[in-house]
């Protein structure tokens, strides 16, 4: 079975996370679950990758974190939630455009079986 190489997907982890956060603020495990679900179990993001992305994007001002006591299910665990900023939305849009172009270019070199 082919697997996604982490080198290739690295540049797009941020895009995936942002696309989820644009819908609503969320926290670590919930985001990794969503990525898994949307990708039909084809991509499982590592915890360290996810946390790296959070710190990097927070530093760049694409997302903000806040601590909430309760999640929507009324679970009492304290969690760090993340929400997207305007700069994050802009970055997401530019990454989407970049991907369309990248895909178009790479596609031309891929041999169709």
């Amino acid at each position, binding site marked *: 079975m082919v697997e996604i190489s982490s080198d290739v997907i690295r540049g797009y982890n941020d895009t995936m996370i942002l696309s989820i956060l644009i819908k609503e603020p969320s926290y670590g495990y919930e985001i*990794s679950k969503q990525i898994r679900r949307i990708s039909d179990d084809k991509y499982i993001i590592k*915890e*360290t990758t*996810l*946390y790296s992305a959070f*710190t990097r994007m927070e530093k760049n001002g694409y997302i903000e974190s806040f601590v909430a006591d309760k999640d929507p299910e009324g679970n009492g665990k304290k969690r760090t939630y993340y929400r997207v900023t305007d700069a994050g939305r802009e970055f997401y849009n530019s990454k989407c455009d970049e991907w369309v172009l990248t895909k178009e270019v790479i596609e031309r070199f891929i041999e169709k079986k």
Partner: protein
Amino acid sequence: METIKNYLEAMFANMPNTPEVMKAKAELFSMMEDKYNEMIADGVSENEAVGTVISEFGNLDELAEDLGLVKEVEEVHVREVERPRRFVELSEVQDYLDGRKLRGIMIGAGVFLCVISVIFPIIADEFAMRESYGILGMFISIAVAIGLFIFSGIIGNDFRYLQKELCQIDMSTAEYVKDKKNDSKYALAMMQTIGIILCVVSWLPAAVFDNKMAPVCLFVMVGIGLFLIIYSAKIKNGYNTILNLNDATTISGTYGKELDAKYISRTAEVFMSVYWSTITCIYLIVSFVTMNWGSTWLIWIIAAIVHKILKVALVKED
């Protein structure tokens, strides 16, 4: 769950002890915990859940990069080579803590003997014995005390390296000491409080009974009080010395500083730190003004109850 925690601690073992690293560790643990709990709730076996969580964890190198810690991680490595910190083993820590306890008893007993040495002449006088017996008793008592001081100093020398050398402890040792400190917290606080109370009320007998033996009572009470204060302080400081070996430049593990109760605000912290001295002042002032020593001691009981309530109310929950 314990396995996951240990795994994470092992992964972070070579990371410096900075706030960023602490936060990363806590966040990663939270994610792993969520994943584990959900798998268990879905009926996955514990072993399988632990295996999955660990295999999907990833590696910390990329994290070091994004946390901007590459430099620090390297520094830790360089320091380990150039100025190695001595790793203090759990057995050494246990020896140190036992030695500390013994020294607490010795120094406490020595101080006790010094304080009560003066009662021998009084006793000799009271029971119409020869004066020289009283003097002799006093000097023997002081001599034994000095012997105890010297001996405790010799024991202490074995552990001088804790102060002189750079040392560190690993995570499990830190946890062990932390648990011990927590377990003995109330017993030590109680000892200290009783010690202080004994010293403060020591001259009550002398004030109430007009008897030649009253001064004897005073010195014995002060002696016992000081013994309790010294013994409890010795043990408590022992725990703190060990826990403070790790700091921001060592590998991750428990910081001593973090372990003390955190109060909800700075004001609360200051207030609680001067609480007992304030009570002592109030007690003395009230007692001297009213001269009602027979009932003012109740202040201590009330103060202890109020202290308990304040502590519950003002300590920040984790």
